[in-house]
């Protein structure tokens, strides 16, 4: 049994008296599709912020494979393969989709610091970027500026940027947030078609999507992990229903 690709040990974080994460212990093996669910304010996005280094934990450790990454900055974690997308589009408004993904590819390849070389290395990066965009059905609109793209396309661009970094672990924060039902199916199919090598964890509220695309589910409430298990186990668990709907008043 190989080491989990992403794991946390006793992760704690609070803002004053508000506990946003308490004793989080996770171990995500390679290739599994995890859904992270829970009511609003449960601390799901906070957990992603902690794992990616945008928030510093009060206590606990985070491991990528065998290596501890707790003290590393966000860009260093990305370089090691831990990548996230944002719930609210965090894109480059006046760069075209192709430029944006090319930028991510260049940063990954380490070319982004060079300014004396022009075409040769650059061209392969552009081609790789274009391929990523095509795999997400954004190939035709790749020259359009980001702020001109449709909202659903922008959500796809979020994922494209993450893919350009060749992640080992991909954390998707409500990838379909704000996207109409019919378009989100395409989005999740794209996620499902991601390579088996990548471990994916996505935050999601739509239970249909969760049960369709996740092989394991983590339930978070009030900063703590309530449960972890297969979709069948979670569906059968009365506590989950309680957490979302409240305790039954009669019967």
């Amino acid at each position, binding site marked *: 049994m190989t080491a989990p690709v992403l794991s946390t040990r006793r992760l704690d974080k609070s803002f004053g008296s508000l506990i946003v994460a308490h004793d989080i212990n996770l171990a995500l093996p390679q290739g599994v599709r995890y859904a992270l669910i829970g009511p609003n304010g449960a601390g799901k996005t906070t957990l992603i912020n902690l794992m*990616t280094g*945008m928030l510093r934990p009060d206590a606990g450790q985070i491991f990528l494979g065998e290596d501890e990454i707790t003290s590393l*900055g*966000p*860009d260093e974690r*990305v*370089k090691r393969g831990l*990548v*996230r997308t*944002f719930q609210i589009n*965090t*894109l*480059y*408004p*006046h*760069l075209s989709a192709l*430029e*944006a993904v*090319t*930028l*991510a590819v*260049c*940063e*990954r390849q380490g*070319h*982004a*610091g*060079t*300014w*004396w*070389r*022009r075409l040769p*290395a*650059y061209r392969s*990066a552009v081609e790789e970027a274009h391929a990523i965009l095509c795999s997400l059905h954004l190939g035709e609109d790749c020259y359009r500026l980001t702020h001109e793209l449709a909202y659903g396309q922008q959500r796809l661009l979020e994922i494209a*940027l*993450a893919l*350009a*970094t060749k992640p080992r672990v991909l954390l998707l924060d409500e990838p379909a947030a704000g996207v109409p039902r019919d378009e989100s199916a395409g989005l999740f199919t794209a996620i499902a078609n991601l390579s088996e090598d990548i471990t994916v964890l996505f935050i999601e509220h739509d239970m249909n999507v969760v049960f369709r695309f996740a092989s394991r589910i983590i339930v978070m409430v009030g900063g703590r992990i309530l449960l972890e298990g297969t979709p069948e186990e979670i569906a059968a668990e009365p506590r989950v229903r309680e957490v979302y709907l409240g305790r039954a008043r009669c019967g």
Partner: protein
Amino acid sequence: MPLPFVLTPNYLSLASQIAITALFALSLDLILGYAGIVSLGHAAFFGLGAYTAGIISTYGWGEPLSGLVIGAAVAGLVGYGASFVIAHFRHLALIMITLGMGLLLHEAANSASWLTGGADGLQGVNIWPLFGAFKFDLWGRTAYVYSLVVLFLIFLAARRLIHSPFGLSLRGIRENPLRMPAIGAPSRAHLREIYTIAAVIAGVAGALLAQTTSTVSLEVLSFQRSADVLVVLILGGAGRLYGGILGAIIYMVARDQFSGVNPQYWYFWIGLLLVAVVIFLPNGILGGLARLRATWRRAAS
């Protein structure tokens, strides 16, 4: 674009000044227009280049090309040191720190009159003829070709930089600094690099000024000069590479035309211009032209 030799000497020296201003504005464009660093103290590097080139000539070494390189190197070194601070801050703190650094250097130069000549300006600047043959004289021919060639070469280098992956990174930092670490980009290292490069180029511009006019006064380090170059760049349009050149031409020609007017009133019109540009032409003249072109294209289709 280069004005022909046919013009009278007066206009040649104006043309050199335009080239120098354009170069200075180009250096500001790299950090402001492309990386998004708002600096109210960029004249610090201009002044460093000017004073370095001037001072080494007073100590006996007046060779222009090496003086240019040394002036640029000093400005670049200071810029490199400052970049470690600059890359850490944004918004008001950044503006204030750049302003503060500029003011600090100005005060220091004022106090260190043994080195800089203080309020009287640097005395005894003596620049040797370029390549031993071309003197810097009142006719200004040497100065004109010299400044223009330097501007041209650096402009080419800047253009290559803008179209390189590094240039793309800078635009990424300007567009969304939060996204950069999330794609693994070392934003701070990038900012340090461009700030140093911009300091070097500003230093070259300053050294050119010292060498072509054989004078250096405290004014090269003043807030006035930092504000002027900002106006020049905004007028032409930041982030468009040619904006600095266009702005420099318009600004310097206008100033030359109105040089008889009391400086107080000149600044009234500059003020009005700034207000008008911000309200009506937020991307400068080049930006306005680009929008016009886009409207025509849409109308045609």
